[in-house]
């Protein structure tokens, strides 16, 4: 029983899953189909004509034209023609106001200015180097002075050395003499001490009462007296010597002071090193000045040359301007413009009261003697089908009064990569401005199957078209793709005549949202 309910449970689950899956698939069915099926656009195959003809239209012009211009700025007084008028040689086209040639005034002014500036440029002063020369001279003198100072310093240096050694010598002498004085002084002092002692003893003796003491003193005195007496001569001598020695020291000290003062004095003078540096600097300064002068001279030479060239140019300008002025003066009295050839006025670019400038076209005259042409713009591919000299059919004129031939095929200057301009020469009764439609090239012919050009595809096996196969089913129509190999027999701008597996009323696929393959199911664009 449990097994039974378990089984039922599973079946229930399966049923729910199945239903939910179907629901979800139904909900998303259109989405999935739109994603999975490529969308295609088709066109039916028809029978019809395809021709390699090139068609185009343009307006009739004359073969050549000339522009009416005027020299100098003028004010137009009257316009005597309008577009479309036929004019004969000598017909007056425009008249001008008199005496208002501002161009001439301007030209004259320009000439005056040019002449003035030329004259000014000739007045330029020659180059002057006095200043530089003076500076160089000064620098040279400075150098000389410095050299002298150097020599002087050299001498001073030597004297200083001598003075220093002398001062040292004097110092030594003084020291030696002082030593002598000191030794003599000590001797004199010794003798004087003895004398003093003796006098003290004498004093003691005078005061002494005791016999023994007197005796002893007496003996001592006598002994000392004897010593003093023996030294007396020496003492005197030493005294004299001392005095002499003291004098000597003073003398030597004076000498030393003198020498040291000299050293100090010499030391105060500039040293040799300084002097040498100064010389070097002066020499450098001099060199710099000399170089500067040289450079300046060179520059001046160049400037002079270019000035000469400028002058030449200015002279030429002046001449040209003079010519212009002459010309303007000559035309100043012109008050009207006349047609130079027979023809038809195709454009008039000005009206009464306009200020016209020199060389601006006032009008265009198409020369009737030169014949008529029509220019037609075609693609490069089309241009390949045309040859110069080809007879063209004029499609919008039904009788045979007008004939046209291809005169030239040139690249279009405005769009040289894509288009060409074909010029037809038209003979017969046409007017300027008339629109003509031409067809030129092979004759068109009938084809059983004509498909749009974008339906023809190509791969390694050759050209083919994809045909849309419709299968009516109980579920509605199913569309599949079938490949049909074809041969393109002729093609023009839009369609191709093909032969092969394509028949009238087939639908060929022109566009698809995805790459297509044989047998693929597709859906039609809505």
């Amino acid at each position, binding site marked *: 029983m449990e097994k*039974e309910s378990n089984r039922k449970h599973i079946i*229930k689950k399966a049923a729910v899953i199945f239903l939910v899956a179907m629901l979800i698939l*139904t909900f998303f*069915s259109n989405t999935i189909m739109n994603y*999975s099926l490529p969308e295609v656009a088709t066109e039916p195959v028809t029978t019809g004509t395809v021709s390699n003809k090139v068609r185009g239209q343009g307006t009739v012009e004359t073969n050549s034209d000339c522009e009416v211009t005027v020299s100098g700025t003028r004010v137009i007084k009257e316009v005597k023609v309008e577009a479309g008028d036929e004019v004969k040689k000598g017909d007056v086209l425009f008249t001008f106001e008199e005496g208002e040639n501002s161009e001439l005034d301007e030209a004259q002014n320009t000439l005056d200015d040019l002449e003035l500036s030329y004259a000014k440029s000739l007045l330029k002063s020659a180059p002057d180097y006095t200043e530089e020369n003076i500076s160089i001279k000064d620098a040279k003198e400075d150098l000389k002075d410095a050299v002298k100072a150097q020599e002087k310093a050299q001498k001073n240096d030597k004297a200083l050395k001598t003075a220093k050694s002398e001062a040292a010598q004097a110092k030594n002498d003084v020291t030696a003499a002082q030593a002598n004085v000191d030794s003599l002084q000590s001797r004199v002092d010794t003798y004087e001490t003895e004398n003093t002692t003796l006098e003290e003893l004498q004093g003691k003796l005078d005061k002494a009462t005791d016999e023994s003491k007197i005796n002893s003193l007496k003996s001592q005195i006598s002994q000392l007296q004897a010593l003093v007496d023996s030294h007396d001569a020496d003492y005197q001598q030493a005294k004299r010597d001392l005095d002499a020695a003291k004098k000597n020291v003073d003398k030597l000290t004076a000498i030393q002071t003198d020498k040291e003062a000299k050293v100090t004095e010499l030391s105060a003078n500039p040293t040799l090193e300084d002097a040498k540096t100064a010389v070097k600097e002066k020499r450098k300064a001099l060199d710099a000045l000399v170089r500067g002068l040289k450079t300046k001279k060179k520059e001046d030479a160049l400037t002079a040359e270019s000035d000469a060239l400028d002058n030449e140019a200015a002279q030429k300008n002046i001449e040209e301007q003079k010519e212009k002025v002459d010309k303007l003066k000559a035309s100043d009295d012109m008050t009207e413009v006349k047609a130079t050839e027979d023809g038809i006025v195709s454009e008039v670019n000005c009206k009464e009261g306009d200020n016209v400038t020199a060389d601006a076209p006032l009008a265009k005259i198409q020369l009737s003697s030169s014949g008529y042409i029509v220019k037609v713009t075609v693609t490069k591919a089309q241009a390949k089908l045309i040859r110069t000299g080809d007879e063209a059919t004029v499609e919008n004129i039904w009788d045979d009064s007008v004939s046209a031939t291809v005169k030239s095929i040139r690249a279009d200057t405005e769009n040289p990569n894509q288009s060409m301009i074909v010029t037809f020469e038209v003979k017969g009764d046409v007017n300027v401005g008339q629109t003509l439609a031409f067809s030129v090239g092979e004759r068109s012919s009938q084809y059983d199957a004509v498909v749009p050009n974008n339906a023809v595809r190509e791969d390694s096996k050759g050209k083919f078209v994809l045909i849309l196969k419709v299968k*009516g*089913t*109980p579920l509605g129509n199913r569309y599949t793709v079938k490949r049909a190999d074809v041969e393109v027999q002729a093609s023009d701008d839009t369609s191709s005549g093909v032969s092969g597996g394509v028949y009238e009323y087939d639908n060929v696929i022109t566009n698809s949202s995805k790459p297509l393959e044989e047998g693929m199911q597709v859906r039609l664009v809505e």
Partner: protein
Amino acid sequence: MKRKKVRITIKKVILTLVALIFAISFLLPTILTIANSFMSSTEINTNYGVIFNQYKETSYGERNTDYVAEKVNLKFIPDMVELSQYSTVLLKSPEYLLKFWNSVILVVPIVVFQIFIALGAAYSFMRFRGRIREIIFFVYVALMLMPYQVTLVPNYLVADWLHILDTRWSIILPGIFAPFSVYLLTKYMRRIPESLIEAAKLDGANEWQIFTKVCIPLCKGPIASVAILVFIDYWNMVEQPLIMLSDADKHPLSVFLSQINSGEVGLAFAVATIYMVPPILIFLYGEEYLVDGISYSGGVKG
């Protein structure tokens, strides 16, 4: 003794073999359908295309360039197992899915309401006896025995009169009041012992309570089997929608399946396989009710 046993065994073997052969021959179409649903469309065209060849000509009288075997080549094993049929059916054919739901929309109300109506009718036939009842019941049985084609024209006329032609009601209404389930349920209810109803009455139950509390619970099995049978019957209907519904968008899948040979042979097997799924599930779910219900109605006394 021994000989008897051997004889019985031989008899069994022979009977089993015969039963097996029958079983296989009944199952064969189903197996073929499922097996072939995994073939690619081209393979099916190659093997069975010859049957449908009259439809394979294009409007230009140009023969289809696909290779088609000259004889039907019954195959059980695909050259290449592919799900392309299924993907085409389920992913690239919104119409197919819509038709599936058309089937569901038609069949489910029929089954549900037919059971309700039939239960009421059957109870009445059981409870109220008499001459009139016998006549009505006879008419029911007679109607049930008639093939659909006989009642087709009256059906159509009535639908037209009710202005329900081309609407789903023209299918659903006749379906709801079909006699088959009334007959089957009446037959079963009559076997409910009188004593049970008497007992209920004694307990104070009224008719409604007897109907809902006694009869319906007793009839669970038959209700299930009737539901399954009705479901399968209407799931496979072809004529009613074909005649009543001119708008092909409202047609159920069964109609489409009947037309499958006109251009969609390559998908036929996958379509059929998917179409088989709901009846199979329902059958598996109510298998024992179905067997019981049919066997009861076959004469086992309750």
